[in-house]
């Protein structure tokens, strides 16, 4: 078999191109997969928390509980605010009394399992507040573990719980690395932040976003490049909580600190 220089070069180029095509490019996709991949759903909800703006007033927690009918005096909440006080001995004092529902009105801080403490201001190196809520993960572990299909991810990326279907086994509560799930004291089913699904789908903001006077909480559509929240997430230095878990949270934080867990 003879081989001219021209054929050799041609075949080399062809071979190189063929080798560069990944196997996944040859996979047959179902129409739904293609639709999802090209972004047929035009909405993907994302959240931006600016911890540098939070003053710990707790209006967000109050609004959330009332809006979503979470029993007001029960020690459970869909969103909460944590206080971090770092002292000169590099110790982090963290508390969130009643989830910060009534705001932080005293310097007294109560760490888990320790007596309340009054830290003198000269001992403090930094102190700040961090609002927490469901991260509406792209890979929600809480959904993976549900044995009955009672919790799921909506096409616009929000994780919801079907109260008529939940059997109350509590797997999802154990699975969530962020501890956002709890049992609803009245319905005895798993309960979590829904990004105020009834509000955002009507064009409103979530109750916590509306209640925040300082703009520390914002919600937007991550699929819309002109959305101010999407722009801020793309242009500012943001982080997510517990990145190492691979859950891909859709709640982004500005001003996270090493001690925030």
């Amino acid at each position: 078999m003879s081989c001219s220089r021209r054929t050799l070069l041609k075949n080399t180029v062809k071979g190189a191109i063929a080798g560069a095509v990944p196997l996944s490019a040859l996979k047959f996709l179902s129409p739904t997969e293609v639709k999802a991949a090209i972004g047929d759903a035009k909405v993907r909800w994302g959240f931006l928390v600016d911890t540098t703006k939070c003053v710990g007033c707790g209006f967000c927690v109050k609004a959330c509980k009332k809006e979503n009918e979470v029993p007001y005096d029960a020690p459970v909440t869909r969103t909460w605010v944590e206080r971090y006080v770092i002292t000169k001995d590099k110790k982090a004092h963290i508390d969130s009394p009643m989830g910060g529902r009534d705001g932080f009105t005293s310097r007294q801080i109560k760490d888990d399992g320790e007596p309340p403490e009054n830290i003198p201001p000269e001992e403090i190196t930094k102190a700040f507040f961090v609002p927490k809520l469901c991260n509406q993960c792209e890979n929600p572990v809480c959904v993976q573990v549900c044995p009955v299909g009672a919790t799921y991810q909506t096409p616009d990326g929000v994780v919801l719980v079907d109260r008529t279907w939940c059997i109350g086994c509590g797997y999802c509560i154990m699975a969530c690395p962020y501890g956002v799930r709890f049992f609803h004291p009245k319905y005895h089913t798993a309960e979590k932040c829904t990004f105020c699904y009834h509000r955002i789908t009507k064009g409103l903001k979530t109750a916590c976003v509306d209640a925040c006077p300082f703009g520390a909480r914002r919600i937007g559509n991550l699929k819309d490049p002109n959305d101010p929240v999407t722009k801020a997430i793309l242009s500012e230095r943001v982080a997510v909580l517990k990145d190492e878990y691979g859950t891909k949270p859709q709640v982004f934080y500005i001003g996270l600190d090493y001690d925030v867990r």
Partner: protein
Amino acid sequence: MKNHVLRPLWLAIVFVAAILLARYYVVPSDFGVHPGVHGKSFTYGFYRQGDIQDWKNFKVKYRGRDLCADCHDKEFAKIKASPHSIIQCENCHGPAIDHPDNPATLKINRSRALCLRCHADLGYPDSNRAQIPGIDPKEHNAGEACVDCHNPHNPDLEDME
């Protein structure tokens, strides 16, 4: 085949058939795998589709300040011109729900604790809290209501009524 083999076999078949029949009636028709963020995924998209609508139907309680401005335009204009313009009406007055039909009147929270949410001085330099005028609740007219001296719709001491 022998009878003692067939009998339990029939029993098992009837048992399975009964389960399948019950499942047919109990499981709603919209329960199944639906397309979502991960395409058609059994892991993330196995659910009753009607539940999405159920959540959408949940009642909105916080209606926003534009609703208040429709009737309470004077009070609205007042707070809009003050440093408290960033605070939503419903933060202090409670959720409107179907006001003025239900509830007919909103209960006004005049408590000291409400003001202290922002104005208690914690001495934390980093958070935005330090930028807000703060008091020591134990020193600053302890026991008295803030609203006796300060108008929450116009808290500026210069314009104090």
